[in-house]
């Protein structure tokens, strides 16, 4: 045998033992990975065993001396303590990861905390709910922000519900089959599932998620009545002007959709079980008893959606009544020369901040409204009502106006009110019983013809807001878009920023370094 320097003689047996143990370990890993009934893991482990025996038997002298030496004692103790410490590290972290569920939210908006309302809903949850969020996984996409927010929110929901809520995020481009199965058209869709029942929302916010959960777990479904009898759009109509698609969308959200002929009711009143009443494009006038029924409905906290179309001559009664609820409907056509589809009477409109429009604003989605009359808050809004504009034309005073002469090509006359012209408002009664009313100057946007151009989602958002429970409205929206960063105003400012961050700070330390070097020289 070649002479090995003193103290290194044990190198070969020790290395052999380590390799042998490694082979046995590898065999175990392979066994885990490949599953039972395969020979390769056993072969590897056997090889390790043979090698271990060979090193022990072949280097008996060295082992004897090694084990008797002082180093072996220290080495064994050290190795044991290292293994012990690594083990403690593993156990501590596994325990922390599994059971230590404490976190401190330092954000001002409390992005990582849920409201009391949501906590109550989650505490009352008594069945597992699985959530699938369809979002793009492309980080450069504008909509990726929604994915991150949805992940944050759903993690909080999962945490607070103690695991009764589970979730997954799916990229519809990568899993087209699943996307197809859930009918994902626009990318952002969050599906809440409990058993066979399903609820969806396109908005990523705590209010919308909790509202979806409430709808999903509610015992009896909510009924949305579509008024008939004034030549309205029909939910049974599959042709272009019909509302079949809108009704389908509501049914997918577990609403029950029914027609309602007020005049056939005796007495004339809105049924007690109405979650909301939709009046879509009436062309015949309402009589006094019907308006009284609607008034009574709102007075007991009703939720009404009115979609009117120009010309509004026939709806004088209705319009006069609407003024009492803070809404002014014009007998005109909204013209927008800057934002329109095909012609200026089909404005796409600009959404204004409101819970209904929030997702449209964030995703910068637009909705075409076809042939629209102006709808504004009245000059002096009655006390206790909050009337907010939802959508309006561009801000320009010359490129948008309310055209009063419907029989000639649109031209801005002195008689026409210049822009911006609103054509949708939401009314919220702030005191009890909390009636809610949305009035829009168009009923085409949600018809079958326009449904998939964004109008459908807008319609669903409106109905969801109308039927939202009182306490859910109170969830404060957490809007990060209020935090903005201004660009530098001038080249001088830009140079200052660059100068200070990139050059001044390094320069300070360069000078200190030079000074130290100079003094020590």
């Amino acid at each position: 045998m070649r002479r090995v320097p003193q103290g290194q003689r044990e190198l070969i047996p020790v290395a052999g033992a380590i390799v042998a143990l490694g082979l046995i370990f590898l065999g175990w890993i392979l066994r885990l990975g490949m599953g039972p009934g395969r020979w390769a893991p056993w072969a590897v482990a056997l090889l390790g065993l043979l090698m271990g025996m060979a090193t022990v038997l072949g280097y008996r002298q060295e082992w004897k001396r090694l084990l008797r030496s002082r180093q072996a004692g220290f080495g064994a103790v050290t190795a044991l303590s290292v293994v012990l410490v690594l083990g403690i590290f593993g156990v501590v972290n596994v325990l922390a990861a599994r059971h230590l569920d404490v976190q401190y939210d330092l954000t001002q908006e409390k992005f990582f905390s849920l409201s009391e309302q949501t906590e109550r809903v989650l505490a009352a949850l008594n069945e597992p709910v699985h959530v699938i969020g369809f979002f793009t996984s492309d980080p450069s996409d504008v909509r990726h922000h929604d994915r991150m927010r949805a992940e944050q929110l759903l993690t909080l929901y999962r945490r607070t519900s103690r695991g009764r809520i589970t979730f997954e995020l799916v990229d519809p481009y990568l899993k087209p089959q699943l996307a197809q199965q859930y009918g994902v058209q626009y990318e952002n869709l969050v599906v809440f599932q409990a058993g066979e029942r399903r609820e969806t929302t396109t908005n990523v916010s705590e209010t919308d998620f909790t509202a979806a959960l409430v709808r999903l777990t509610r015992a009896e479904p909510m009924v949305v009545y579509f008024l008939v009898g004034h030549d309205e759009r029909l939910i049974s109509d599959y042709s272009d002007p019909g509302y079949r698609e809108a009704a389908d969308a509501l049914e997918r959200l577990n609403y029950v959709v029914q027609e309602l002929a007020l005049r056939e009711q005796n007495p004339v009143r809105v049924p007690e079980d109405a979650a909301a009443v939709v009046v879509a494009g009436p062309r015949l006038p309402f009589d006094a008893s019907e308006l009284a029924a609607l008034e009574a409905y709102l007075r007991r906290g009703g939720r009404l959606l009115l979609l009117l179309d120009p010309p509004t001559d026939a709806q004088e009664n209705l319009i006069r009544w609407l003024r009492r609820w803070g809404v002014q409907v014009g007998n005109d056509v909204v013209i927008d020369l800057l934002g329109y589809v095909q012609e200026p009477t089909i404005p796409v409109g600009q959404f204004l901040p409101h819970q209904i429009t929030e997702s449209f604003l964030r995703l910068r989605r637009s909705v075409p409204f076809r042939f629209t009359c102006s709808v504004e808050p009245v000059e002096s809004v009655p006390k206790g009502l909050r009337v907010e504009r939802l959508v309006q034309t561009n801000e320009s005073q010359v490129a948008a106006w309310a055209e009063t002469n419907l029989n000639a090509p649109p031209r801005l006359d002195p008689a026409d009110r210049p822009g911006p012209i609103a054509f949708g408002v939401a009314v919220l009664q702030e005191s009890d019983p909390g009636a809610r009313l949305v009035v829009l100057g168009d009923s085409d946007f949600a018809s079958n013809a326009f449904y998939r151009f964004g109008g459908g989602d807008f319609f669903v958002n409106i109905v969801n807001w109308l039927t939202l429970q009182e306490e859910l409205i109170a969830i404060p929206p957490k809007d990060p878009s209020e935090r903005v960063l201004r660009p530098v105003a001038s080249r001088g400012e830009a140079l200052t920023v660059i100068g200070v961050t990139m050059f001044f700070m390094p320069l300070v330390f360069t000078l200190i370094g030079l000074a130290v070097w100079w003094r020590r020289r």
Partner: protein
Amino acid sequence: MRNLIAILRRELYAYFVTPIAYFVLIPFLFVCGFFFWAAFSFFSNPRAAIPNAPNELMAGMMQTMSMILLLVTPILTMRLFAEEKRTGTMELLMTSPVREVEVVLGKYLASLGLMGLMLLSTLPYPLYVHRYGNPDNGPIIAGYLGVFLLGSCLIALGLMISAMTRNQIVAAVVTFGVGLLLWVITFLPAEWGAFAGYRTLRSALVYLSLQQHLENFTRGVIVVKDLVFYLSFAVVCLYLTTTAVLSSRWR
């Protein structure tokens, strides 16, 4: 305790009379400044209209700073023990009435101090973000805490590896290699059909990734799990460093 402070002062002094501190600080600040300006012009672009832009910018800077820390901390820690061994001062240190723990902690705190100075020198970034926007301070403070904790793990790792070798270059390269491995371990594919226990193994490995635990801090939420991970990681590295230093007594 007095010994610890003496060693801390000796090491800090050594950082600043040798070029090391400057050769770490200056490129760090220059590169971070470059990233800050690039990110600033991207996030402040009114046409991009990025939601929560000021805090997104700072969150991005935290990621950037942690990445650059990965590059520069091996230089901070490489000489701490390796040089002592090479020049033979290790024997002096070992025979002097100083406990090994004090030596290790003194050196560790010196590096932490220098890293703290590095992070402190980036204060102009949040100040500028405040001047040009209305950021939320919570995530910025949490983010700095996260980066500091991540850096303290990297330094503990570097110290451990420096105690295991007598060659500074080897210490630096191995530290960087291990750090990078802990960084990119999240790139492991999510699925590996042939391997039954792969998901568990993957989640355990990914849990070891240093930068993975930074995300929550930069978003403004301090998750105690992340805190536990960083602190336990640093403590284990320091324990192993002490063990390695001690082992020279009996080897």
